[in-house]
């Protein structure tokens, strides 16, 4: 990991040490967040997969019943029978915060009772088909809520993992390397100073000795 290009002095060293400390604390926090997100995520997967398979089967069965009705009443007859009904509010939406991910929660509201079609001209099977669809509808809404939660958690997990990896494998090693290289440069400068001082001391001592010898000789 290449070191950062900074001036090798004590001021920078202190700054970098502080940055590394913050990065390490952030890394720990993000890693904890990632663990918790994974826990939430894994707890939902198996149940949601099972639910999707069940709901798809139930929906296919309901479609089958509608196909029978279509066969009996004709395409136009079925379309006419199903033309009644207007959209109403079917869910109450609230949000739950899971590790800063806003996950929607849908509470089913009562569905209108199907009706408005002539009982004389439509096959009896239509009631059964609508009942089957009405039975699967709340589970469909539940599935939508669960799948949305999984998608949102997956996106957050991906982002958090990138951040954790960037801190762990890029920023923290880079800061450590820079701190090490500044430390080495400062040590080197210190050794240079020490050697210079020793040399000067030696020269002064030699000069003093010469002066003493000269004064003794004269």
């Amino acid at each position, binding site marked *: 990991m290449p070191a950062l290009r900074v001036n090798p002095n004590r001021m920078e060293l202190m700054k970098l040490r502080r940055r590394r400390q913050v990065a390490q604390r952030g890394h720990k926090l993000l890693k904890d967040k990632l663990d918790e997100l*994974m826990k939430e*995520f894994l707890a939902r*997967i*198996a149940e949601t*997969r*099972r639910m*999707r*398979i069940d*709901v*798809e089967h139930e*929906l*296919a069965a*309901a*479609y089958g019943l*509608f196909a029978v009705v*279509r066969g009996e009443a004709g395409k136009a007859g*079925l*379309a006419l029978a*199903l*033309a*009644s*009904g*207007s*959209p*109403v*509010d*079917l*869910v*109450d*939406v*609230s*949000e739950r915060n899971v590790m800063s991910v806003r*996950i*929607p929660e*849908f*509470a089913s*509201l009562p*569905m*209108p009772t*199907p*009706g*408005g079609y002539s009982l004389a001209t439509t096959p009896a099977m239509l009631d059964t*088909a*609508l009942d089957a*669809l009405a039975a699967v*509808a709340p589970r*469909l*809404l539940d599935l*939508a*809520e669960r*799948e*949305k939660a*999984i*998608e*949102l*958690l*997956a*996106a957050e*997990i*991906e982002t958090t993992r990138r951040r954790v990896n960037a801190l762990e494998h890029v920023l923290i090693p880079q800061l450590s390397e820079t701190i090490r290289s500044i430390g080495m440069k400062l040590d080197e400068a210190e050794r240079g100073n020490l050697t210079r001082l020793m040399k000067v001391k030696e020269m002064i001592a030699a000069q003093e000795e010469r002066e003493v010898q000269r004064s003794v000789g004269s």
Partner: protein
Amino acid sequence: MTEGRRVAVVGDGTSVAGFRPLGFAVFALSEPSEARGLWQELTGGEFAVVFVTEQVWPHVADLAADAADRAVPAVTVIPGAGSVGGIGQEKLDRAIERALGTTAFTREEDG
């Protein structure tokens, strides 16, 4: 805070017509590609959940990516009448793969 919202179903008439008497907002399309034109309306905030049949999903998958990061609407794929199925499962698998890097472990768990 909670608020009531509607639920939309988008797909071919045969698949989605049955939802109308149950209070769903039904968008029956003659061509799956028509869903692209409706997408703004569907994801504008009026609907909490948008169910899309498997036949329509490939036409709106790229548009749905925008709504994926928002809490609502939840865009969910449902099988249409006569569709092979599996697209909703695939979408779920993609989310799992995005988070875990693989779907192998979760598949083993199911089996």
